[in-house]
Each structure stands twice: as structure tokens, then as C-alpha cells.
């Protein structure tokens, strides 16, 4: 990093530590490029950390483009292969609801069509080790899920894979580091460095220390998600995006082992589904014009979600909601369409291109609405040769998107093609799946806790638990919701690029359980402070910051026992700690 005319320090600077940025960093590093990744907050702070947590196979594209579905399922299978510990199966029930006492012919035909549709999806399920769909009668449905409202006529079932998207993102970033990439979190790109019409680098600023620097690279890959339009605009480029806000609610425990597809008041598809050891309600999709750093669920959105689920699961209001969280979809811009109808395809834009060449993503041969209605965004920018941006996409296809991005980056650099291996080489911890009971026995920890560590770290659970052997005090379980060991906090701080206490929310789910940090926040802050050399002031400041994050998530859903919990939390942190 130099301010003079020294030779380029990197081949590519990647902006954004979401799943696209981290995935591309990994692929580039694996193919021998020198990579610098800059993330203004922490990995998965944006959409990559606020999505529904599923790597689904694109069932909705089967009608328009089966090829897309096949690729998505195949990629889903790849993710299983490289990170089996992060995945868990979610069987879905799609109930049939009739508007009348007796189902009409049209309704029956619709249900048969649904059965056929999902049955066709079965053809792709083997690509991702999914099970075949089934058709359930009403009696069978209520036997499997007694919590559904009466009057349903049956259901069709299929399954998808759920994933902790924060861990997926971090794992990709750490894999990139293992292959030589340099990672800087809490560091924002201030402006692009240009020489004439070429982009030659990036000036950045560390938000925690204030340190400024410059990185030179012939290619800059803008994967900053909802922040990319603003970033691009600073340099006169255009990233055509229609940010779509999505809100989810978390229940304090698994309500069911099966997901239930529900219909909201406005006819939209919604779900109540198990996610790891909780359940999630989701989601909304609304155009968002505000500040991506300032997202909060509104009372309307919360009520919309609860009402939608309640129409199929009447008992949901008895459940305890512990969090509400929001993210922005980086949807490709099209004017004149409803949010739900927008394409979920991705697009890699070359801001140096002039003219009509279409850089649309492979396989995205016209989504709903057709190519004409989209316009050609890649025609707009000029004079920024070397800058590539990615818009849109799905979590499930991140690896394929990163592969394509890396191919483009290599081409831009004029290098010869190198085979992509991201679907073959396991992510850190993904090479083997330890057994929880055996690990519990070996390291002397409780089996459920071992299970949680394995879920988050895979084969690296051995390293985490070895810390307990070296220092038995670290065998303390600091969170009784998530099963977080003191050793896990120390491991994450030492090895997973933790700079702030709130990063641990994304690494090991600190303070995300129903206790809201009552059990674990102060101890984790103490442990992190010891590892990172924080002063007492800093420990308290980081705790305060962690609590602010939590407040933003809990404020929209305070009710019942959650409210009592919050009262206690405020008493301890504000009344006692003065935070």
C-alpha cells in the first residue's frame, strides 16, 4: 500500500465482505491471485447476514428456466460437499387451503398442479441430496403437524437445506486468507484511485483506528451489496439496484421440525420454519430508499408477519419472539414491477465497457418481465476500466456467482484461465463431520454443547475444544441458549478476524438467544478484551455497542416474557453497569 508510484500490491481489491465478496476472494486466492478484501463493518453485516438462511434450489424458476434450477440445485450440492457441518435439512409443508367448505374443481386442479410442480422438482433433488416430495391427505397433515389451523385439505411436501449464512461467509473469508488473501474488516473504501480512464486502486480508512492507506490493483471488484450504488456514484458509475427490505422474526426455540408455507394477508408466500435450534418467520419485500446502516423492523412489518403466519398456525402468538432482523436484497433494478416479481438473477457489470455488449449473467436468459423491460445497465458507465460490480443474486448461488466473477477478473487481468476448485476443496472445518457424543466424551464437555460447536466449526471443533483441555476454565458454558463455551469465544477472537465485540454475534451467536446477553455478554467482553488488549473503557464501550445492536432488534417485538427479560437486561446493563 503506497502513495507513490510503486508497483501494484495486489491483483484485485475486493470491496465488501458479504458472501459474494468473501466467495470471490476465496476463488481468486485459490487461483493464485493476490487479493485484498475490504469490508466496512464485519463479514456478513448486510444481506449475507440477514437472509432466510436457506440455500434453496430455485424451485420458482422451474417454469421459466429449468436450467437455472438445475444449476442452483447442483450448487446447493456443492455447498454440502464443502461445508456439510453448516447445513441442516428443513422439510416443508405446503398446505392446501380452500376458500369454501368443499374444495372447488379449480382448487383441486390447483392442488394437483402444485403436486406436479413439486414432483418435477424431485428430478433435481438428488443433486442436493434432497428427499422426494410427498402428497399428504388432511388427516396425515394434521398428524404430522397438529398445530395447523383446522379446515386444510392436505399438503404437498419437499425439503430444502438451511444454513448459517454468517458462518458460510466467514468460512469463505478465512479460506481466502489461508490461500494468501489479505482481509481487513471495519475498513471502508473511501474512493477509487484513477489514472486517466483506468481504475488503479482504492483509498481506504480503518474505521476503528482512523488509519488511512491506499491499495493498488488493476481490478477492483465492487461487491458491497446495498452500499454499492452509493459507492459507485462517488466515482460517477451507476449500479442499478432496487434494494428490497426483508424482515424476519426469530422464535426462542424450534416451534416445529417442519417448515410451514403460509399465505400473508396480501397473498404473498411466507413461512414459519425451523432454523438450527430456533424457528424463523419470514419475510417481507419492500422497496427501501433509506440508509442501509439504519434498518429497523416497523410495527407494521412485525404485525404483517405474525398475521400471515397466524392464518395457518393459530398458536404462533403464544410463542415467544426474541428478535426481529432486517436486510436489504440487492435486487437488480427494473422499473414498473412489483417487488416480488423482480428477478433474483445476478449481473456482473463492467464499468469500463462502452457500447452494446451485454454482460448479463450466464443462465439468466430473461427472468419474468423479459429482457426489454430491464434496459441495459452495462451501457451506462464509462471511464472506469477495471471496476466490476455485482448486483442481485441468491445466497444459494454464491459459489457459482463467485466463480463467474473470478473468471471475469482473470480475463480483465489478461491471465490465462485457471480451473475453479471452490466446489471441490472443503471450507475450513468442512473436511470431516465429528460426532457430538464422541467429542463430548473426549474433551469432557456436555454433548449438546459439543453439538453446537460442531455445527459452527465442523472439524475445527477439535481446535476449539482443545482450548478447554489446555485451560479447563474455558470449559465454562457462557450461554445456555446457544451453548457457547468460553473456549469458543477465545477461539473466534484469536482466529476469526474479530475486532469488535459485536462481531461475535456473527461468529458464535453471542447474545442472540432469548437471554439477550444477560448470561454471556459481559463475560464474552472480558474474554475478548483480554485477547485483544482492550482497556476497561473499551470493554465497556464494546458492551454498550453490543447492547445497542440488540436493542434495535428487540425493540419492535417486546411483549410477554420477552418484555420481562428486557426489563432485567436494562436493569443490569444500564442500572448497574451504567452502559
Amino acid at each position: 500500500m503506497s502513495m507513490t508510484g510503486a508497483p501494484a500490491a495486489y491483483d484485485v481489491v475486493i470491496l465488501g465482505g458479504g458472501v459474494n465478496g468473501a466467495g470471490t476472494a476465496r476463488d481468486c486466492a485459490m487461483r493464485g491471485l493476490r487479493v485484498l478484501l475490504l469490508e466496512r463493518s464485519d463479514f456478513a453485516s448486510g444481506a449475507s447476514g440477514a437472509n432466510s438462511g436457506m440455500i434453496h434450489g430455485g424451485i420458482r424458476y422451474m417454469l421459466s428456466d429449468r436450467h437455472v434450477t438445475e444449476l442452483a440445485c447442483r450448487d446447493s450440492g456443492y455447498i454440502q460437499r464443502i461445508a456439510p457441518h453448516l447445513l441442516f435439512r428443513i422439510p416443508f409443508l405446503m398446505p392446501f387451503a380452500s376458500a369454501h367448505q368443499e374444495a372447488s374443481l379449480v382448487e383441486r386442479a390447483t392442488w394437483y398442479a402444485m403436486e406436479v410442480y413439486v414432483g418435477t422438482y424431485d428430478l433435481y433433488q438428488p443433486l442436493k441430496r434432497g428427499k422426494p416430495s410427498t402428497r399428504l391427505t388432511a388427516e396425515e397433515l394434521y398428524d404430522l403437524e397438529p398445530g395447523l389451523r383446522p379446515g386444510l385439505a392436505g399438503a404437498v411436501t419437499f425439503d430444502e437445506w438451511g444454513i448459517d449464512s454468517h458462518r458460510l461467509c466467514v468460512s469463505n473469508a478465512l479460506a481466502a486468507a489461508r490461500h494468501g488473501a489479505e482481509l481487513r474488516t471495519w475498513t471502508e473504501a473511501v474512493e477509487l484511485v484513477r489514472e486517466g480512464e483506468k481504475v488503479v486502486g482504492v483509498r481506504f480508512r480503518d474505521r476503528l483506528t482512523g488509519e488511512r492507506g491506499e491499495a493498488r490493483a488493476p481490478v477492483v471488484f465492487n461487491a458491497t451489496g446495498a452500499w454499492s450504488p452509493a459507492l459507485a456514484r462517488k466515482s460517477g458509475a451507476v449500479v442499478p439496484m432496487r434494494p428490497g427490505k426483508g424482515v424476519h422474526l426469530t422464535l426462542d426455540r424450534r416451534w416445529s421440525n417442519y417448515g410451514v408455507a403460509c399465505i400473508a394477508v396480501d397473498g404473498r408466500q411466507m413461512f414459519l420454519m425451523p432454523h438450527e435450534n430456533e424457528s424463523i418467520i419470514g419475510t417481507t419485500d419492500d422497496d427501501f430508499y433509506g440508509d442501509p446502516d439504519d434498518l429497523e423492523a416497523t410495527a407494521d412489518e412485525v404485525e404483517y408477519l405474525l398475521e400471515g403466519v397466524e392464518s395457518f398456525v393459530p398458536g404462533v402468538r403464544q410463542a415467544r419472539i426474541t428478535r426481529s432482523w432486517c436486510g436489504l436484497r440487492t435486487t437488480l433494478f427494473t422499473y414498473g414491477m412489483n417487488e416480488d416479481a423482480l428477478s433474483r438473477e445476478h449481473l456482473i457489470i463492467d464499468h469500463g465497457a462502452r457500447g452494446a455488449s451485454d454482460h448479463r449473467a450466464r443462465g439468466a436468459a430473461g427472468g419474468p418481465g423479459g429482457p426489454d423491460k430491464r434496459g441495459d445497465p452495462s451501457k451506462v458507465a464509462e471511464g472506469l476500466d477495471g471496476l466490476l460490480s455485482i448486483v442481485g443474486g441468491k445466497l444459494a448461488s454464491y459459489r457459482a456467482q463467485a466463480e463467474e466473477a473470478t473468471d471475469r477478473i482473470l480475463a480483465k487481468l489478461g491471465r490465462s484461465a485457471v480451473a475453479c476448485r471452490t466446489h471441490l476443496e472443503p471450507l475450513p472445518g468442512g473436511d470431516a463431520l465429528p460426532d457430538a457424543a464422541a467429542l463430548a466424551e473426549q474433551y469432557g464437555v456436555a454433548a449438546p454443547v459439543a453439538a453446537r460447536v460442531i455445527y459452527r466449526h465442523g472439524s475445527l471443533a477439535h481446535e476449539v475444544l482443545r482450548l478447554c483441555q489446555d485451560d479447563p476454565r474455558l470449559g465454562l458454558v457462557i450461554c445456555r441458549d446457544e451453548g457457547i463455551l468460553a473456549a469458543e469465544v477465545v477461539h473466534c477472537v484469536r482466529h476469526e478476524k474479530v475486532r469488535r465485540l459485536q462481531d461475535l454475534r456473527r461468529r458464535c451467536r453471542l447474545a442472540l438467544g432469548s437471554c439477550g446477553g444477560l448470561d454471556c455478554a459481559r463475560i464474552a467482553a472480558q474474554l475478548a478484551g483480554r485477547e485483544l488488549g482492550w482497556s476497561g473503557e473499551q470493554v465497556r464501550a464494546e458492551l454498550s455497542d453490543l447492547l445497542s445492536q440488540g436493542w434495535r432488534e428487540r425493540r419492535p417485538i417486546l411483549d410477554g416474557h420477552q418484555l420481562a427479560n428486557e426489563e432485567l437486561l436494562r436493569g443490569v446493563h444500564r442500572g448497574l453497569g451504567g452502559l
Partner: protein
Amino acid sequence: MAGPVLETDVLVIGGGMAGAMAALSARASNARVALVRRSPGATAVSSGVLSVGDDPRALPGDFFASRCSPGDAARWVAAADPDHPYARVGEGLGEIEQAIAFAAHELSALIAPPEDRNRWIMTPYGSAIPCALCQRSMAAGDLVEVEGLVAVVGFRGHLGFDARLVAQGIDRLEGLGAPRAEAVELALFMGQGESIAQPFALAQALEAPGAAEAAGELLGKVLPAGAAVALFPPVLGLGPQDGGPWKSVPERIAAAAGIAVAETASDVPSVPGLRLQRAIDARLAASGVELLQGEVAPGPGGPGAPLEVAGRSVVAASWILATGRYLPGGIRRRGVLQETIFDLPVEVGGWPRRTSTPMSTGSLARRPAASLTDRDERALQPLFRAGVRVDAQLRPLDVDGRPVHPRLHACGAVLGGHEPAADGTGMGVAILTGRLAGRAAAGKL
């Protein structure tokens, strides 16, 4: 006790600090008192100190600049905030000093005698909080009184307490007149690959014969020069089960180590909080209050009418509601804010008074919870100040502003207008309103 019907003068519902003060005050006025409680509440998980209020002119944590007495601090609060219970009781606020003295006297086995200023007690966060009353086990750690060095002591196996963090917190205040501090570690309670790490387990371990003495001896060997007090995590024993005489863990450690010993205030799980609740229980039992264990079902008749609870039928001329707020469930929100026993109107304190049309007391209780909160968690949060509205005699008011019943009173956290857990006045409100309610209820004979 013969027969199922219990006739008494005053019935208190709720056995935390507020209910206990109400019951004991009524006893002190020679009334017959019965107290029914279901389970511990906020008192049992409190920090262990009793805060009444602090000098608003001083910066937070600037204890040497804080000049006024706890009583004056309460008067400041009342002057600034007319919704606060300190203001609601009107002239009753003049009894705050007597209320503090009364509480200290009733719980004298546990509570150190009051001073005419706030004590400043450290917390595990490395912060210092002001309090009108603290437990005897904490008094030696009052930062205003310490002369010399504070040795902050951690148990090596107890990750939950970071002695260095607390010592740094004291050091930060050195410029304001705080003593110097140093952290030391005791390698105690560490077994084969396993240490005692949870607060209640530590407290129990320290109570065992010889344990506190061993801790004191070990401490004596590692004390830095000039140490005037050893400040421990808040785990120094749970106290006697029966309220009888006993040598406390801090005393035993101090004797063995040859230095004054204190503990910090506590977050959750709270050993001092449970100690306080047990002291309250013991005092109630010893003072002739009829204690009933059970739950009062919603919709009971009211003062004068029989109340079926704990297998008895209780008839009392005056009732005092001391059921607490969200934690013990005296106030609950299930879609709408409610007081759980009588369905009394719930006010949402701190609502802006800019509107000229007065809001009917019930309407705010139905608003979405988020609309009763502020985005900035440090700002005033009306939702957390919700509770029952009372007149100057602590009688709950109906939607028209009239007492619901002439002999029904309320005290403590069930009252609206303050946030007991977080605004530094919770215990003060409990002590003052408990005492006033008790005397009012007894006076109505």
C-alpha cells in the same frame, strides 16, 4: 392456626422490598398484617444495594462531586419529574429519611447503617453506583471511605469476574478522588480439570467450614503493600437460613487475612439479591406478619371481601398491592398492557405532554410496544415506566382519576412513572411508598 378464615387488618399482596416495607410499617403501627406471596421477584435478583437517587448536578460516576443526601436527591427527582412516585406522594416525600432509617433498622442484620450521603459501590462492570443503603458485606468497599489501596480479588477459576476490569474502573476514577486499585488472583476452588465457576456454587463453597478462612490466609499472602480493603466478587456467602446469629463469610475472610473485606454489587445471577430477599423473609416471619404462600387469582373481590388464597379465606379491611412490574408479572403485556390482579388502568409514564387533549388512561396501554419506546436505548422509555397511577395516599386511580377503592393501596414497582430497574430510584420508591402505604392502610382502622 385454627380454622380456615383469617381475619386481619391489612393484607399485602407481594413479598419483595415494597411489600415487606408495607407489611412491616403496618405492623409498626400495631395493625394485624397478612402478606401473601407467590414467588420471589425483582428484589431477589437485584444488585444488593438500595438506591434512592443521586445528585443530578454531579456527572455520572463523579462521586466526590455528589454532595447531596439521598433524601435531597429524591427531592430533586420529584421536582424534575412530576410523574415520578416521589412527586406523586406529595408531602409524603418528607418521610424519605425515616423510610431509609426504617428499612435499615428492620434489616439491620444485613444492611449497614445509613449515612447522610450516598455510598459508592463498585460493580463487576468496573462502574461505581450510588446507593443510600448497602449490605454490610459491601460497606468496606465504599469508595468514598477507602483510605489506601483497593485490592480487587478474583478467584482464578471464576471467569465471571474480571478483577483487572474492576481495578481499571477504580483507577479511571482516580482523578476524581478514588483510591488506587490493583488486581490479585486466588487459586481456590479449582478441582481436577474443573473449577467452581457459578456464583451460587461459589457462595455455597465459601460458607463451608474452613473455606473462608483458607481464602483469607491465601489472600494474606498475596496482598499488595498498602492495601486497605480486599474487594471480592459478589459471592461472599448466602447468609443464615433462619436469620439467626452467624459469622458472615466476609468477617471470616477478614479475620484470617487481617484486612477489611468487601464485595461488589451484583448483576445476574445475584447472590446479594437472594440474600436480601432471605433477610426480608426472615424479618417478616419474626415480626408477627402472617405469611401465606400462594397466588392471588385475577379478579378478587377487594378490601373487606374474603379472598381465597393458600387454602385460607382472608378478610382484610385494607389491601396493599405490591406485585411488581414485568419480571414478577404485576404488570404484563400480552398485546396490551395490563395490571394482572385488579385490571387497574395502566398509565404509560413519561408520555409527552404536548397535546392539549388529555389522553385517556387506557388508550396508550393498547399502543404497539415499539411506539412506546425510543430508538436510542439510553433515552427515556415510556414502556418501561408503565404502571398503576396513584394519588398522594397511594391509592390506585380509575380512568376518571378517582381512587378505585378507598382502602386499596399500591406501592413499589407496580407504580408507574419510574423505571425501577434502571433509573436509580427503584429501591427508594419501594422503601418510601411501602412505608407510606403500610401506614396509610394501618391508619384506616
